[in-house]
């Protein structure tokens, strides 16, 4: 190992023993280049090395043509989703220590592969309910502190999922311990649009038409905090065979979700609403 080939994700190692090496089997595909295949790379790892660290090490020291997506490196942007040993993970927070001596890395399932580990995310966003346009805006008020205004769309506005919403606690959430709201704080939505739930969904694997867990969970969020959207419209969008009724309750989406956005529970909440709710008895229910 040359001096600059220190284990990725950790400090440059000088004298301590660093002989932990993992074999990565990496999915490769270049358009018009003889089809898909796996390539193997041996990567030195340390106690904090992530799968993303290892893949970037391969890019830098073994093969600069390996293509992958990443941005924030801390599970906030949602770009580095992939399958690691067959399970959906954000590579940036997937420790190699939780895997064996050979680690297989593939692109997300149920989305078209652009190249190597890169999927085309338009296939993910195209499933969202575009007919419910919302953009929630925040703007500086005259004193320079922040108030809120609503922006009327002067262009086609698309459901802007992570836009700030009033601070809110879902009863099934357990890991958010924000301060009680003494003022009207806002926060970004939990969903980071990573596509892990769609990749993990066994129903999406068999049906191109199914809108999938992320889009349904987003619709359910609109019921809880409508942002100007009519409940009936959201429910009508979800209430169709390729919508909320397609789910087989495998719960894989909630297991895969790296942001605790609980898509499976939200799909069930939509079903409950469609089964027991309705415009006629709305007053008694909510």
């Amino acid at each position, binding site marked *: 190992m040359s001096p600059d080939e220190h284990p990725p994700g950790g400090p440059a190692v000088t004298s301590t023993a660093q002989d932990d090496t993992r074999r990565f089997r990496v999915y490769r595909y270049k358009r018009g280049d003889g089809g898909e295949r796996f390539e193997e790379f041996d990567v030195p790892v340390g106690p*904090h090395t992530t799968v993303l660290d290892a893949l970037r090490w391969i890019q830098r020291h073994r093969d600069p043509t390996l293509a992958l997506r990443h*941005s924030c490196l801390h*599970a906030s942007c949602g770009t580095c989703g992939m399958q690691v040993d067959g399970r959906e993970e954000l590579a940036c927070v997937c420790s190699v220590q939780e895997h064996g001596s050979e680690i297989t890395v593939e692109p997300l399932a149920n989305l078209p592969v652009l190249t190597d580990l890169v999927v085309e995310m*338009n296939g993910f966003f195209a499933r969202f309910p575009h007919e419910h346009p919302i953009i929630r805006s925040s*703007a500086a008020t005259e004193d320079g502190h*922040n108030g809120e205004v609503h922006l009327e769309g002067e262009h086609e506005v698309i459901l802007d999922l992570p836009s700030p919403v009033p601070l809110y606690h879902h009863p099934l959430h357990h890991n958010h311990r924000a301060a009680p709201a*003494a003022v009207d704080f806002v926060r970004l939505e939990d969903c980071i649009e990573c596509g892990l739930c769609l990749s993990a969904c066994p129903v999406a694997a068999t049906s191109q038409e199914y809108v999938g867990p992320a889009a349904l969970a987003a619709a359910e969020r609109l019921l809880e905090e409508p942002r100007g959207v009519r409940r009936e419209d959201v429910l009508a969008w979800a209430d169709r065979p390729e919508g909320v009724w397609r789910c087989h309750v495998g719960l894989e989406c909630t297991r895969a979700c790296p942001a605790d956005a609980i898509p499976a529970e939200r799909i069930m909440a939509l079903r409950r609403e469609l089964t027991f709710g309705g415009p006629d008895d709305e007053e008694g229910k909510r």
Partner: protein
Amino acid sequence: MSTRHDAHVLIVGGGATGGGLAHDLALRGLRVTLVERGEVTSGTSGRHHGLLHSGARYAVGDREAGVECIRENMILKRIAPGTFECNDGLFVAVCDEDLEYLEPLVEGCTGAGIPVQRLNAAEALRLEPNLNPELKVAVRVPDATVDPMRLILRFFATARHNGADIRPYMEVVGLLKHDGVVTGAAVHDHVTGKTGEIHADLVVNAAGPWSEKVAAMAGAQVPMTPSPGVLLALRGRYCNMVINRMHKSGDGDIVVPQRGLSVIGTTSWVVEDPDDLSVPEDHVERMYAEGSKLIPALRDAPRRAAWSAARPLVGSAAAATGRELSRTFQTFDHAEKEGIEGFVTITGGKATTLRGMAELCADVVCRKLGIDEPCRTHEAVLLPHTAYYSEAVAA
């Protein structure tokens, strides 16, 4: 939309700088191609702590930077509604020594036009109950939290909508030069595995900490000192406002809430190669130690991720930690600098001022190409980030 111009500009680098510039030039009606070796925002731009600066952090030592930040802060909130948690920020004094920074901070902010509000300990704790109960005093400023990638995607989305060709996974492997003029780039397409050439009337190097390497391909010099910092994301959200330490810029002086995470930043050192970033474990420990002085509960919060990002500091490598170098940006016209025509570098700066940086660079680009079009980016509301993907299909 302005008149269409035939002039073709090739931008190298898909971060905040390139995204802002592609949007500005496309709005002015130029033909724009942008190439990035990986996914957009995969270098420095996606990795910052997620603070939209009010300017208060700079107002004490560098009033001009403070003025620039508050101006751009207000513009971005207007043109990118929905991308920020506009919860303000607090500067908190947790020991007597911190109090020495109180008056300079208030005066600096006032002088730079940054609204401030003094809060006593009880008032601050009412807003943020998890703050260190020992806190002496706090100052409220209009900081905000931003999702870095999605803010920049909105610039790319709008640029695409206005005709710019945004090409991720397209790596520049050389710059084409004829008779001392840069005429384009040789590129390797990581999607097809093929190599090709892109010709342009002007090439703009917007590669952040990689600017020195890109400039060298044209035989030009851009002195960069990539300065990494370690950031630490912890599980759980312990504050709603951005919490800053009330003293001069130092290690672990900020906690930024991001969705269900708390991000503590940062340290600062210098490297030669921005691709060679380590995450020293003692820096991670320092983030825990300093962050928990602001919010004690962070000491026991589980680690979600630790990472490094390289600031694109302009200057030579005499710096020891990077904090000595300015956070401002520079535009180099290499024709003036070293007689290389057709090649401009824009580098340095910070995410909060990406629009302003792009405006000044686009002015230089237009002047060189003989195009007279005003900047419109301060008033054009950006498309949502999701349009980046749908516009790709439409293109």
